[in-house]
């Protein structure tokens, strides 16, 4: 069975149809890069998969491990294993990163009928993850993403990805705004996450991330549909020729 099945997906935002019959299948262990020009529907796909309010699915099927995601609330999808790394992570003063991470992990444990992690071992795990991503442990005490640089916010998304270890990671332009060093750290994090048990949807504008995270498939999204699919060489071709030749 596929890990993720998206079939004939149509979705609208504020009455305007953005996704117009999108199909994609992801098997466990696969990384699928989704590229495409601005306005093609890449972020809409990410938001629809994670259940963001305001995105109306008008037609189609979205299943994770055979379970219909569409009737489910965002937190219920997260419990099944959907994770969205935000293009613009939200700043939340007053709530510490550590409290946010603990609430996330505890909520997942509760949903699965598991015990909440021991606080001491939890803190140790988070600190080790932060250090491995070149994030100071001081960040854990500060408000969620509060005053973080763009690169720090993206590394914080990867920290959450590694901590929650989801079934499906949807990374929405996680490489945007990163310098080459930060890009390397983020890419290393994604590669650490990759396994035969999970899948990755890697939404990106640029080929350069794919030098570090080698995808199994590359899809081009244009006007709400996948218009071309291939292997990693397709990304190189896009880098060279742009998107116009696909129209």
């Amino acid at each position, binding site marked *: 069975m596929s890990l993720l099945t998206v079939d004939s997906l149509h979705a609208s935002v504020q009455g305007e149809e953005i996704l117009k019959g999108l199909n994609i299948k992801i098997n466990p262990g696969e990384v699928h890069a989704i590229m495409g020009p601005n306005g093609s529907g890449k972020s809409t796909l990410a938001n629809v998969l*994670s*259940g*963001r*309010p*305001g995105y109306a699915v008008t037609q189609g099927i979205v299943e994770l491990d055979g379970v219909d995601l569409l009737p489910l*609330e*965002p*937190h219920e999808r*997260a*419990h099944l294993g959907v*994770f*969205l790394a*935000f293009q613009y*992570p*939200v700043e*939340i*003063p*007053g*709530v510490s990163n550590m*409290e*946010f991470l603990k*609430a*996330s992990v505890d*909520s*997942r444990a509760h*949903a699965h009928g598991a015990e909440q992690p021991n606080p001491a071992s939890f803190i140790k795990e988070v600190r080790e993850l932060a250090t491995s991503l070149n994030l100071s442990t001081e960040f854990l005490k500060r*408000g*969620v993403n509060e005053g973080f640089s763009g690169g720090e916010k993206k590394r914080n998304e990867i920290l*959450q990805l590694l901590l*929650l270890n989801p079934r499906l990671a949807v990374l929405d332009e996680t490489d945007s705004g990163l310098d080459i060093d930060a890009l390397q750290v983020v890419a290393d994090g994604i590669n650490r996450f990759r396994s035969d048990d999970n899948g990755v949807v890697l939404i990106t504008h640029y080929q350069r991330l794919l030098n570090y995270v080698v995808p199994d498939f590359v899809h081009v999204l244009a006007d709400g549909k996948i218009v071309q699919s291939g292997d990693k060489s397709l990304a190189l071709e896009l880098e060279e020729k742009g998107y116009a030749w696909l129209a």
Partner: protein
Amino acid sequence: MASVNLADIAIPAWLNRVTHDQLNIASQTPAHAERWKYTKAQKVLDLIEGATEQPSISGLEQNGVSIGTTIDPDLAALLYDDNAPEAYIAACLANEVLYIDIQESLASPINLSHGTSTVPVVIRLAANVAAELFEDCQANEDAIHLLWIQMGPASSLVHSRQSFETAASHWQFLHTLQERMSTYTLHNHTLGAHLRRQDLHVTLNGEGAKFELKSAAFVRSKDHLDQQLTVQHTAPRTTSRQLLNNIAADKASVTCNGRIHIHPNAPQSDADLSNRNLALGKSATVNTKPELEIYTDDVKCSHGATVGQLADDAIFYFTSRGIAPDLAQQILSKGFLLENVAGPNKDYASHALSQALMDSLTGAAS
């Protein structure tokens, strides 16, 4: 105010510098009516006629502290304020005034606890004195608490005030007069009450004086909180920073009027006021009005007031991590409230405010 018979007030000789006519005029101005728009003045006036007792105090046994029940007649001018004639009336009606004179920097804080209506308190800090004041308004009956603070040149005071008793009506009046280079920091942590009225007047009366306010309030049920703030910059290069985060839940009512007045002789003053309000539910009422009166050109002055509900993108960020929407609301509301909780009493205040908020959001409140 019209129902108060000022002629009946026996003004002590040492306070008798203001005529009844002046009081009557002050209490009938449009500005005064505006200040009492959201709280019925008569409710407070009824309170000021009640009996008062000495507050419970500790920290007076230190070197450099002396107390008395009379004050220098020269301080009478401090007690009179055109903007708050009712406070002056209350001072006149009280049989005594508790006067705390601080002549040396203090090693330990002064703790002032109000278990009932208390006599007016005047605290005076001498020049270069550093002190800490902890004030607990815990009267479980209707009560008034009046406090005047006079700060000498280059003195500093960190004042933490907590008001967590909800089952009564409280009027809290506070006026701080700051001289040159003094620094006053107020941490105001409060719950609403049947009626809670907080009047705060700060006069930056000497060059380089600084005032900082951080305030966090949670008001639930049918409770009421009315904060009236007036900061006057009357000297050059004075600075004020005011941050107030208020949450109104259920059918509560919250008002915050923040007035900044920069006088003509106060160039290069720098004032900022931010009042953010979170309305939880559809039946809460929030009134907020920042007011600026600026009579000199060379100043920096800014204000902002917002009323809203929790941001959708913040809730989605939480739910996308598996946190259920009701828990997300609890954590985000708590974060909003505790953002402004600071000072020496931070831990206790954080716990008290969080507990009240969680009880309300989880339905545990009565």
